């Protein structure tokens, strides 16, 4: 594994108060770059991609065992799977889109939720210790998918002119400011929205990973002479941040899916 070579890439002998002249090996952008594990036809395959594929395997593996031989009277694993499935279905999709309209988007939203959540959870899994969603490509693919879906649903539902009206927030009662509103809405919905959708997830996981790496590295760096208590504080903060990150990971997956549903709801609505 390349874990040690990258995110924990610092001089092991570098400690505070040591006189070899090195400073604190602060985490930075380099913490998000990985040496390729191997290359396929000139393209590099790195740890993040591997984790993304393992995510797929894990999710399918779990739900295959849980739902593969689904029974009317569920076993423990099936019950856990059903609870997760039901949470996304009822608390996110039905809440925003309603049962009638939302039913056909349930598989997409359930897939999105679990895929994002597990990508996030890698952040605190030993050896992996890297949230896949802190690499912009992954949130971007998913946000792009949601964008394509809601834009096409908008035009399919309302036709071309109706779809444009929907996206631009056309409302006659606005009078003179209508053109301005239409321009702003058009830009905000079509261009800013997918960007913030992806970046919200990316930035949360990016920042969380930075914090975790910083406290982890500091715990080691400070472990010298009279600074050892500070190392203890840093270690406790590492534990606290891990717990906090566990919370943030789930919340961000929830928010991403909730926003996806809310965009769809806007696309399906009669009036913007």
């Amino acid at each position, binding site marked *: 594994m390349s874990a040690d*070579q*990258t995110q924990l*890439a*610092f*001089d092991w002998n570098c400690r505070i108060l040591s006189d070899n002249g090195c400073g604190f*090996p602060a985490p*930075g*952008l*380099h913490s*998000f*770059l990985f*040496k390729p594990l191997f290359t396929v036809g000139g*393209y*590099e*395959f790195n740890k*993040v*991609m591997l984790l*993304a*594929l393992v*995510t*797929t395997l894990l*999710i*399918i593996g779990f*739900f*295959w065992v849980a*739902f*593969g031989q*689904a*029974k*009317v009277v*569920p076993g423990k694993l099936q019950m856990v*799977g*059903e609870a997760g*499935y039901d949470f996304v279905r009822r608390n996110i999709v039905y809440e925003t889109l309603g049962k009638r309209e939302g039913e056909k988007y*349930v*598989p*997409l939203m*359930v*897939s*999105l939720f*679990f*895929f994002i959540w597990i990508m996030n959870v890698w952040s605190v899994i030993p050896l992996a210790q890297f949230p896949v969603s802190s*690499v*912009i*490509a*992954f949130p*971007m*693919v*998913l946000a792009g*998918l949601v964008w394509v879906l809601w834009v096409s649903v908008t035009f399919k539902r309302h036709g071309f002119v109706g779809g444009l009206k929907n996206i631009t927030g056309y409302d006659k009662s606005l009078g003179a400011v209508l053109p301005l509103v239409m321009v702003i809405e058009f830009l905000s919905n079509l261009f800013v929205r997918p960007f913030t959708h992806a*970046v919200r997830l*990316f930035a949360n996981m*990016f920042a969380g990973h930075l914090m975790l790496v910083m406290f982890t590295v500091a715990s080691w760096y400070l472990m010298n002479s009279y600074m050892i208590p500070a190392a203890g504080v840093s270690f406790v903060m590492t534990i606290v941040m891990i717990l906090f990150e566990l919370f943030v990971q789930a919340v961000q997956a929830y928010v991403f899916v909730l926003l996806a549903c809310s965009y769809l709801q806007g696309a399906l609505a009669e009036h913007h």
Partner: protein
Amino acid sequence: MIANLAALAAEEEQNPLIPAGPELLVGAIAFAIVFFVFATKLLPRINKTLEERREAIEGGIEKAEAAQTEAQSVLEQYKAQLAEARHEAARLRQEATEQGTALIQEMRAEGQRQREEIIAAGHAQIEADRKAAAHALRQDVGKLATDLAGKLVGESLEDHARQSRTIDRFLEGLEDASKAEATR
């Protein structure tokens, strides 16, 4: 090592918001697989199971409702029967009471009748005895009186006619005396 990575970062423009092509592709594939398996295989299966469960539960509820309705009707029948039985019992008791009263009445009447009969018979007997006694007494007293008178007077009062007259006169005198005594 840091220098190496920093160089690597510098090489790749250092902008974390620019996605790398291969990563986009891998992300898309990874998600597509999850979505495909969920949409075509796992979710339909679990939905079917959930539907079956819902039906099983609703079937159970229906059965329970049917059983409850039956129990209710049986209870009502039972109550009706109970009420009828109570009514019948009350009727029988009433009848028995009436019959008993009639019986007592009848027996009392019979007793009364028998008592009166006995009393009447007693009275008749007493009357008959008194008459017989009076008759016997009249004869005996008459004989005694004539015997006594004959002895006193010295003459025989054998003559029947005379004898009777004398006796009657004597008895009348006795009756008068007793009447006078009674009125006084």
